[in-house]
């Protein structure tokens, strides 16, 4: 644009020239440039790495939850509103006799049934078949379980068979035990055809199956499972009440993603006359759980990232200010050859923004490498959201812009006379 009074075109600094001058200014002192960038590298790197590692970890948690926990619904019997049981006895369990069949008819249910820990007197003894002369001094949980509950528990059979509806309906004295219990009682899975028995305070239960692991309820304990009706006949009704350790419960295995729907329907299906007696729980939303687990840590690391960015900002500001003071002679020269104050400001601002952007770029790259290596080491899948990873270097640009503002203003205000005298 021609200057009105002189007829000469105004002084102008093209963006390309400003960028070239900025790069030239930065590469003058590579060592100082690298050190100055370090704060931004750490800040942006920490930011991207924290979010990347969090997302990667969250993905892992989500996967683990989705397989089992998200397909389990638990129903607890809170007991009747008015305890109608005779003194010294427990009320009838809240679940109907055909609870298993009812559960099977609810959409999304794979299997479900009633179980409870049988209340045994203190010092109750478990011993193996006399023929095998085994005895156990360790704690074994005696659990009553319906055939549906057995299926829902997802037992991995090693030998024998599971408790059947027939055995339940006919109060058979049969049992399933886990391999640890079997070993403790001296019952070899290979000997099941000889019908070994476990004596619980003198009552014999024929072992018909041995399992090695379970997906639900008895997954990490030594347990002995007997039919529900056999338990009712031998030990009476379980103790009611939420929070009680021996209350009757239902365990329901659902299809993936159906847990919430099943949870909302099961109480009314099982006990339509008094659904509020049953308390239904299903696993927490994996996403919200993941948020709880990682939320505090993420906040902490993001604060650290912000602090690093702040340090980076101060570092760039300090270096740019020192550069302005060091280069007053250059400022004077540029003014002498036609630069306007805004051109001087633009140059120093371009230098600090370039410095910040480079720092952001390097930090982002390093963070991506860290996340990928970390995920690979853990055999996880690296998760990096492009919505924050790709623009991350711009955080460095913003830092550079912020840091360069004051030094650039100061450079622009430098008198060309003072600058030339400086030399």
């Amino acid at each position: 644009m021609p200057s009105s009074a002189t007829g000469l075109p105004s002084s102008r600094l093209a963006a390309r020239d400003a960028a070239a001058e900025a790069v030239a200014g930065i590469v003058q002192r590579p060592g100082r440039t690298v050190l100055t960038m370090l704060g931004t590298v750490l800040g942006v790197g920490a930011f991207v790495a924290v979010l990347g590692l969090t997302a990667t970890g969250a993905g892992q948690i989500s996967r683990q939850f989705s397989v089992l926990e998200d397909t389990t619904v638990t129903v607890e019997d809170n007991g009747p509103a008015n305890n109608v049981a005779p003194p010294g006895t427990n009320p009838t369990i809240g679940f109907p006799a055909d609870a298993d069949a009812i559960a099977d008819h609810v959409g999304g249910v794979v299997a479900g049934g009633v179980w409870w820990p049988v209340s045994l007197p203190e010092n109750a003894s478990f011993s193996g078949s006399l023929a095998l002369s085994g005895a156990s001094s360790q704690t074994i949980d005696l659990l009553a379980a319906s055939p549906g509950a057995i299926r829902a528990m997802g037992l991995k059979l090693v030998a024998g068979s599971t408790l059947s509806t027939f055995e339940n309906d006919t109060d058979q004295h049969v049992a399933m035990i886990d391999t640890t219990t079997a070993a403790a009682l001296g019952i070899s899975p290979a000997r099941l055809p000889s019908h070994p028995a476990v004596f619980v305070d003198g009552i014999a239960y024929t072992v018909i199956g041995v399992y090695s692991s379970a997906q639900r309820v008895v997954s990490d304990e030594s347990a002995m499972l007997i039919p529900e009706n056999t338990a009712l006949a031998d030990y009476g009704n379980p103790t009611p009440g939420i929070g009680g350790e021996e209350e009757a419960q239902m365990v329901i295995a659902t299809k993936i993603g159906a847990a919430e729907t099943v949870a909302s329907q099961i109480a009314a299906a099982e006990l339509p006359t008094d659904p509020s007696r049953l308390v239904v729980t299903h696993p927490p939303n994996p996403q919200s759980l993941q948020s709880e687990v990682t939320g505090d840590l993420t906040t902490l690391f993001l604060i650290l990232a912000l602090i690093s960015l702040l340090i980076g900002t101060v570092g760039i500001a300090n270096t740019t200010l020192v550069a302005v003071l060091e280069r007053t002679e250059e400022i004077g020269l540029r003014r002498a050859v036609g630069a306007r104050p805004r051109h001087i400001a633009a140059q120093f601002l371009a230098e600090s923004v370039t410095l910040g952007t480079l720092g952001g770029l390097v930090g982002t790259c390093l963070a991506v490498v860290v996340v990928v290596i970390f995920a690979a080491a853990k055999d996880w899948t690296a998760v990096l959201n492009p919505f924050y990873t790709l623009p991350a270097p711009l955080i460095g640009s913003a830092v550079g812009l912020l840091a360069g503002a004051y030094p650039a203003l100061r450079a622009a205000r430098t008198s060309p006379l003072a600058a030339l005298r400086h030399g």
Partner: protein
Amino acid sequence: MTAPVIELRGLARTYPASPPVLALRPTDLVISEGDYVAVTGASGSGKSTLLHLLGLLDTPTAGRYLLDGLDTSALHDRERSALRGRRIGFVFQAFHLLPYRTALENVMLAELYNQTPRAHRLTAAVEALKAVGLGHRLEALPTTLSGGECQRVAIARALVNRPSLLLCDEPTGNLDSRNAAALMELLDELNVEGFTIVVITHDAGVAAHARRTIAISDGVLAERVEADHA
């Protein structure tokens, strides 16, 4: 008669102090196109003040300064910057070369703000360096050049955009006698080519090269005319 490049009418510069410092008293002066003027004086006489005013690096407190017939006194900084970039070439005693940039880049800097395309800047800078005898040191850094070579780079930078006025501030101040003599020869040649040159110096030998000598003392100019100067 050639057109005046510089025309001062009552130009004065007073620095605020107590009492105010009259660095340049009201001055009238005309320097024509092709003139070769030496301004001599002792330290503190007002030489630098005059140079800064002539170079549009400072503004007068009174009077008018016409450069190429243009009254610069009322110009905005934007216009003064444009004039500096296109009409005035500076040669400083301290060279003022950017130490991390090559000789070529230092010369190209003179047209950086003139909206001149880069290719043209490059060509012009090469030509200017060749003109001062440094065509073989285009990529040399100032730190590897001698004092004389540095000052030649500075002169190439000053004349690359063919300014109306070449302002030289003690151009031989940092040079030995041999380099100083060579530099003055170069300035003489440039004057012969048509450049208008104003040299600020306290060195009588340097002043002797000029066709006009203006002495300055306590901010007052006094011209000594030597009609038979070669």
